[in-house]
């Protein structure tokens, strides 16, 4: 204990574990030590045709602080998106991820930039995790030029090429065979990375998922099928739509692991394990037991098919941000004031990004016709009478 306090004092002088540049607002009593720290995952893994990994996970104070900060930014971003939608800055569809942050944050802790992620439409935070910025997310939500997809995709279609994030897909389940294809490319080109093909409990009943699993298992593709089981496919509870809601077993011959998706560390451990497995042996299914606080989308109040008690119960007992907060406080890696300061910074970051995104202009009208084909060979897109407004596709 004394050693830790001495270290923290030294950290004030020497600027912590050399992870933060001088003058940064992190140079305070907050521990940024990257000393390895082992923690126990409270909810055990459950394995299907595979021995689950150990429930002792290696992490560090710096990593936990980073988890906290990232998840808090994501949470603020989603809540800001909620109010943006209600004030009609965002139109169309908006599927919020709050409650599920631990999944994408935990995943990123075990992945690098050689890995690819492809997911469904609840993708704002996954995009952030892959290297996107809050500004890009807000601008894309509002359909502005500075959005990651130039404002042409919207909430459901966020992509990041450098970060290997293949979106952002609207049709439920359609992204899973794409994931198999990405994995094939990685294997063939010896990239030494895996693909995480994410889907939900609703999509788990789509035929194309099983086709994809069969192909991946047949050809030993390094793909990890991550089922984000938030227990409700829109308004349908898992037990009403699936004969077997044990989604980690649904791969049958594909081994699977059930993970507490509200625990960043468990997710990190599972993804690390799955990545090692997958690079050698082929596909694996990870079922993340998680929960979303909002409804399916902004047009769903989220309380007609589940009780408010259930939602607040999960928020009290399993909230991923609170879990990390308790860890940080109990191990004294941060004080309450430190965490408040991080929260304040995060709120400011989100607000600044929001203000900037609101100033971003809408895409220009010719963008309607761009990017339909790569090279259109003179194909024409027609206006009303084909005389005045015929556009040769760029």
């Amino acid at each position: 204990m004394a050693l830790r306090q001495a270290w923290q004092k030294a950290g004030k002088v020497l600027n912590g574990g050399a992870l933060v540049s001088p003058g940064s607002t992190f140079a305070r009593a907050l521990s940024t030590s990257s000393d390895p720290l082992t923690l126990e995952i409270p909810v055990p893994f459950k394995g299907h045709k595979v021995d689950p990994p150990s429930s002792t996970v290696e992490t560090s104070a710096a990593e936990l602080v980073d988890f906290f900060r990232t998840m808090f930014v994501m949470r603020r971003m989603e809540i800001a998106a909620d109010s943006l939608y209600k004030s009609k800055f965002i139109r169309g569809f908006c599927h919020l991820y709050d409650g599920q942050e631990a999944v994408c944050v935990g995943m990123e802790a075990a992945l690098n930039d050689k890995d690819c992620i492809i997911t469904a439409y609840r993708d704002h935070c996954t995009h952030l995790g892959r290297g996107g910025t809050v500004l890009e997310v807000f601008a894309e939500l509002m359909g502005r030029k500075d959005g990651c997809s130039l404002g042409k995709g919207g909430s459901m279609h966020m992509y990041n090429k450098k970060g290997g994030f293949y979106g952002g897909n609207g049709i439920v389940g359609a992204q899973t065979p794409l994931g198999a294809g990405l994995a094939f490319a990685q294997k063939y080109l010896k990239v030494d990375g895996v693909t995480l093909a994410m889907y939900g409990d609703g999509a788990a009943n789509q035929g194309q998922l099983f086709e994809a699993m069969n192909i991946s298992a047949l050809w030993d593709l390094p793909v990890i099928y991550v089922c984000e089981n938030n227990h409700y496919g829109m308004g349908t509870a898992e037990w009403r739509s699936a004969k077997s809601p044990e989604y980690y077993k649904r791969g049958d011959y594909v081994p699977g692991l059930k993970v507490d998706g509200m625990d960043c560390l468990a997710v990190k451990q599972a993804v690390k394990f799955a990545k090692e497995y997958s690079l050698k042996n082929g596909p694996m299914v990870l079922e993340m037991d998680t929960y979303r606080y909002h409804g399916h989308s902004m047009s769903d109040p989220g309380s007609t098919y589940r009780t408010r008690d259930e939602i607040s119960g999960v928020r009290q007992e399993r909230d991923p941000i609170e879990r990390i907060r308790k860890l940080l406080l109990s191990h004294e890696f941060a004080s309450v004031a430190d965490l408040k300061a991080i929260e304040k910074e995060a709120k400011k970051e989100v607000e600044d990004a929001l203000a900037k995104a609101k100033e971003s202009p809408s895409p220009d009208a010719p963008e309607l016709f761009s990017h339909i084909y790569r090279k259109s060979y003179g194909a024409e897109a027609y206006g009303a009478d084909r005389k005045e407004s015929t556009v040769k596709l760029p």
Partner: protein
Amino acid sequence: MVRRRFSFGLVSRLSSPIYGRSPCSGGIWTPCLGQKRSFMTAKDLVESEEPEKKVTNRINMFSAINQALHTVLDSDPKSYVFGEDVGFGGVFRCTTALRDKFGRHRVFNTPLCEQAIVGFGIGLASMGNRAIAEIQFADYIFPALDQIVNEAAKYRYRSGNLFNCGGLTVRAPYGAVGHGGHYHSQSPEAFFCHVPGIKVVIPRSPSQAKGLLLASIRDPNPVVFFEPKWLYRLAVEEVPVDDYTLPLSSAEVMRKGSDITLVGWGAQLAIMEEACDEVSKLGISCELIDLRTLIPWDKELVEDSVNKTGRLLAPVTGGFGAEIAASITNSCFLRLQAPVSRVCGLDTPFPLVFEPFYMPTKNKIVDAIKASVNF
């Protein structure tokens, strides 16, 4: 999109009677060669009386569809309604109260699996049941396209009439709403319009929806019924409370005119009506036709109309306008005084923020009408 209440007045049928008993009936549906319309409508359709004389209720489109479904489930014990979320009433409220009244063995939810929903419906129908499958949005119908095209449409033909899935009706909300984006706004009816063996029906208003849906469900052929989701709440009309059907493969002239024929279906007709009103101020008289059934379509009526006016404009959302244009050009070539024109969505994927540019708006239609008349 400005929220306006559209009341569609009921227009009495002005064209030559097409519906009713056909000479080729024999108790079994068979194709009738030699007629301009190559398929006949069901033999046991009831001719609808003038609705004004009936007891009506002022309701919107989803209520009208709901009434139709209640009627079917009431009258036929071997009819079933199923799809994603239909149990609690559906995302558009079209299936409200069905499960409470008829039980969860006849009105039930399916998991998220469009291909299986339609395939399951085909199987159910081939055992002589009325299977009414709902696809939550027409944009999601594509996994089921194989089942519809390869299984449903060809069942009777390939089995030499031993089996058929005529009791299948696939309902799907289609069309733009102003903010739907890529995957909640598409109008895929054209994909189904080139498949002999199925029928494609699209209503334009609540009273049409109830009558056409009842006719579609009772038609002994598989029908894909697209409902314009924009009109679910917006269109309010006096709808007869009782059981009535409107004939399939029978187009309706909504307003008579002499200068140009406009053909359309579904929600687009509301926009076209506005365009017709606007050009009437310039002295252009438009004949507006609601096709109602896209395949098999009422070619005779459209030809008669074009022979009268000499011009055709097919402002529709989707590719079926091409078929109409080609067909009419072929049959009315010498009569045409201007090239057949089409006003459609642009040749781009359905956009997100650009929707106002993409849509075939009233002004685009007015421009096209003027261009055609002044050719």
